[in-house]
């Protein structure tokens, strides 16, 4: 009998407590500072072009082969009258987010620090109606860092 009354008390105290539910699509919890979503490309704000030179290092290192890279001569190079010291620059870049397993290897092998893992909520909310829509193209990959939404990287 004491146990029965005690259990009633337990449920009543649960009733008085605040619900633990978070209204997810409207309310986002703060992400951990080293959160890792999908890889994106970084933008060189000083010269106003991507860091990426299209060297294929990440493409070759990718264990699931989700990347495709095409390189071109940089029209903004100093020899062409521009201001950039990059002789080659990225032409086209596709990452299939459906295949990517977020292993961080592409970030580690990059010689130019041109690729990074997205650490914002937008990086996680990638649901689409068709698998082919998960393949990201160059402007989409660059947009996040170019607009300044990416949070600074934190050392472990």
């Amino acid at each position: 009998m004491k146990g029965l009354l005690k259990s009633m008390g337990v449920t009543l105290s649960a009733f008085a407590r605040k619900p633990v539910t978070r209204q997810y699509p409207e309310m986002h919890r703060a992400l951990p500072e080293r959160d890792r979503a999908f890889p994106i490309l970084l933008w060189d704000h000083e010269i106003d072009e991507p860091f990426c030179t299209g060297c294929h290092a990440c493409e070759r290192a990718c264990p699931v082969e989700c990347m495709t890279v095409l390189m071109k001569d940089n029209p903004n190079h100093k020899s062409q009258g521009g201001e950039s010291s990059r002789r080659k620059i990225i032409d086209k870049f596709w990452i299939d987010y459906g295949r990517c397993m977020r292993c961080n290897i592409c970030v580690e092998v990059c010689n130019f620090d041109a690729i990074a893992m997205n650490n914002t909520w937008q990086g996680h909310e990638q649901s689409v109606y068709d698998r082919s829509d998960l393949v990201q193209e160059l402007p989409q990959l660059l947009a996040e860092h170019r607009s300044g939404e990416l949070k600074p990287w934190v050392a472990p």
Partner: protein
Amino acid sequence: MNIDLFGIDMNVWADAFIRVNIIVLMMTVVVMGLIYLERKVIARFQMRLGPTRTGPLGLLQSVADALKLVAKEDVRPRNADPWVFELAPYFVFVPIFLMFVAIPFAVDWEVRILDLGLFYVLAVSSVNIVGWVMAGWASDNRYAMLGALRSAAQSISYELPLVLSLIAVAMVANSLNLTEIVAGQGRIPNIILQPLPFVIFYIAMLAELNRTPFDMPVGESEMVGGPYVEYSGIRWSFFFLAEYASLFIMALLASAVFLGGWAWPLGEDWGRGWQFVLTAVKAGAIIFSVFWVRSTFPRLRIDQLMTFSWKALLPLAFVQIMVNGAILVYEPEKEVAQTLLGVTSAFGVFFLAWIINRSVTRPRPRPVVAARGEAVS
């Protein structure tokens, strides 16, 4: 022949039609509100939010559910008995609504003042067992049949303590007319004079309503829904409607018979609005406690259920009736008689608590029976 309907002179048949319509409309709204409230309250007991998406605070959730149920196909299994299968929901549903005829909400606010109101309510309330058994039998489904038989066994077993506890109160109130019972509680509500019948009534009410912890007939985890396994759409919603309507009416009955309905503690001079509020608050408290019990206790076994009814509740109800009779016949002083009633009944509550305590803390070991039926030591 004309009759007085809330101050308007009205033909008898038109009057009856209007009153029935008021009941049906009010019940549908109340049931939708109850479903919403139950989901919200149970959610809070589990530290969730409950429905929030449909309308402000999820208030339209029940409306959306009702629309969905009405729009769904009304499926009947091929082997089902067509007539019995399709009539069963009405047999569950109509008696519940008939019970409303005698329930007093405020002074002169009931469908009809019946001199045998309590008797009528109890008589009508037991009819819906027929509907459950019809549903279970006609579905041609083992789970439905098992659920219907459990429902019948349970409802009939708990009908007796329910009726006897109300008889004990009727002896004290000296009337079977619900309006008079309520009016007689202006000073002391019956729960003070008769706590034991209230406890018995409450437990038996939970069983009659097939609510947790007595919900074996519809136990989702073992009976996949009991008698209404095969029902869908509007017919299934009739069962649901009947379940919540009976919860509401049992709460109203308890608040009228035990908690003093509109009469206690304000009396008749405060006007009708406050009487409605009083009745609603009392019924609401009982409904909340039913939700609370539901979110706390696990389901009992069927043998525990039957044992509790026949060996604990029923004898105690009989003892209460005999004690009441002795006190009311041999004690002419009203004050002394009331004190005696309250004290003996409170003692009965402690005795019942002791019985429950004993069965909870020292469950009788059941002999392990081997395949050949011999007891294994």
